[in-house]
């Protein structure tokens, strides 16, 4: 609901939520380099661990799929960012961006290090979610941080793919978290059939509707818990609790009418970072400048 409020007014009602912050990994690849595919947490718990594992996996396949463009980039990035303990891109009173401080810069540096060491696929600057998913499913990539809906896609299109799900690697000293996003329902002010729309909204907000109609994790907390009860990954492990744990700790991207402008600048600076035109500090500073001008 937090994402629906602006200046004290509620504008919408959550329809489906999602947390972007699960690490999918290729169990077969893990086995090949001698890692425990059933208990992967030690291998990827913190960012340094994550990088080490990636280096090990380099011989088997391209270790990590990171995104470089579209709205998915800020989503994935924020998944990593919020594990640092930060609550938002903005400071407490939402007057300034804090991305140019340590935590933001460190997250950007994570991307840069992965790219510089050749641990990501070629062309990351132009990679979107669909590409990485396909590469992951066909065994080209070993690890990918994304949301819970990806599991269904793998199950359906790559039934032989042995993937596991675990927590998103967290910054050293950080916590388990993710980026919260999702779809909300609003009634257009100018809509003609407000009564009918209101009724539909009420119905769609009920628990039954949320458990039965919505394909992705539902907006209502109680429905979400039910949905993830028994949620298994490709290895048959029950990982529903991981999802819910991360979901509870998750935070959203900035809730602001000018967010799209922020996102565009963010993507641009991250691309500059990836192609080597900017350092993490520079990229985050520039992004913060733009965000501040939009606030």
């Amino acid at each position, binding site marked *: 609901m937090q994402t629906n409020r602006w200046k004290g007014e509620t504008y919408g009602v959550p329809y489906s939520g999602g947390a972007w912050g699960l690490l999918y990994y290729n169990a077969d690849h893990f086995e090949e380099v001698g890692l425990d595919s059933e208990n992967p947490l030690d291998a990827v718990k913190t960012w340094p661990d994550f990088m080490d594992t990636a280096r090990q996996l380099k011989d088997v396949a391209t270790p990590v799929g990171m995104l470089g463009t579209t709205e*998915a980039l800020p989503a994935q990035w924020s998944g990593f960012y919020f594990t640092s303990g930060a609550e938002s891109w903005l400071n407490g009173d939402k007057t300034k961006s804090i991305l140019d401080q340590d935590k933001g810069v460190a997250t950007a540096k994570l991307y840069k290090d992965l790219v510089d060491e050749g641990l990501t696929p070629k062309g990351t600057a132009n990679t979107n979610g*669909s590409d990485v998913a396909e590469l992951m499913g*066909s065994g080209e990539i070993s690890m990918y941080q994304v949301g819970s*809906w990806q599991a269904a896609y793998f199950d359906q299109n*790559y039934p032989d793919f042995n993937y596991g799900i675990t927590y998103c690697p967290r910054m050293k000293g950080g916590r388990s978290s993710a980026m919260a996003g999702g779809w909300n329902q609003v009634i257009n002010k100018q809509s003609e059939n407000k009564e009918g729309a209101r009724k539909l909204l009420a119905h769609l907000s009920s628990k039954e509707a949320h458990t039965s109609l919505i394909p992705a994790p539902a907006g209502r907390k109680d429905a979400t818990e039910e949905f993830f009860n028994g949620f298994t990954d490709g290895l048959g492990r029950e990982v529903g609790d991981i999802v819910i744990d991360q979901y509870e700790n998750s935070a959203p991207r900035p809730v602001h009418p000018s967010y799209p402008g922020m996102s565009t600048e963010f993507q641009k600076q991250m691309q500059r970072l990836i192609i080597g035109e900017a350092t993490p500090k520079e990229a985050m500073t520039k992004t913060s400048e733009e965000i501040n001008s939009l606030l």
Partner: protein
Amino acid sequence: MSMDASTAYESRSIKVLRYAIIAVALLAVMLPILWILVSSLKPSDEIFQIPPQYIPREVTLEHYNALFADTLFVRYIINSVIVATLTTISSVTLAVFAGYGWGKYTFTGAKTSSLFILMSQLFPAVVVIIPLFEMLKWLSLLNSHAGLILAYMLLTLPVTTWMLKGFFENIPDNILRAARIDGLSEFQIFREIALPLVLPGIASTAIYCFVLAWQEFILALTFLQDGAKYTLPVGLMGFIEQNQIEWGLLLAGSFVTVLPAAVTFMFLQRYFIRSLAGSGTKG
């Protein structure tokens, strides 16, 4: 066929060279389309094989089946045909009158107004989307093919008018003057004399207009909300979501979009080219 005179004297080796180059050129140009065809016949997991395979190990029609059975694809094709055809009919009809007027008459503001029409083509479609959206809403024509056709007229009229103006300009004035002397009214002259003379021109203008309407995407995407009303380009986009692309369907769909045009053009290109030749589209 101007160059044909010279080919009779072409040596054998030059002929062979010419054909070889044509073959290579054809292959290069068709490569993308051949590639979608080949890819659309592969089963889903083979599509994403690294490295990509030139020849499918297994040929399957599953995507085409899914395309026609599970999606509204057939509906999209019908919609596209309807919209493109009606756009062409209305645009060309209006343009025929206007082209004749600008091509064959002088009146105050003739040059200015014809330039105005031509210049309206310069404005990027992106920018007129929102005002057009508002206008259509005001006319209650949103989410309807009629509204889209109206918008497409905006897109096509400048070109169709200009093309037909060129074709009309090529009619010798004497013929028309003679008809006037014979006492025919302006409209009769237009209908009986001028029109028949530009029939090939009308044909090529119509083809051109149809192609423009057929592939238009942005306006259709913005103005149509009902899935059942989508035209082909919009429908194809439906296979692409933010994090997931239905490649099999997309590939099959793309090929199907291209195929009818290919067949049509193979038969019509002769007329298209012939009518453009010796007519008014030059300078």
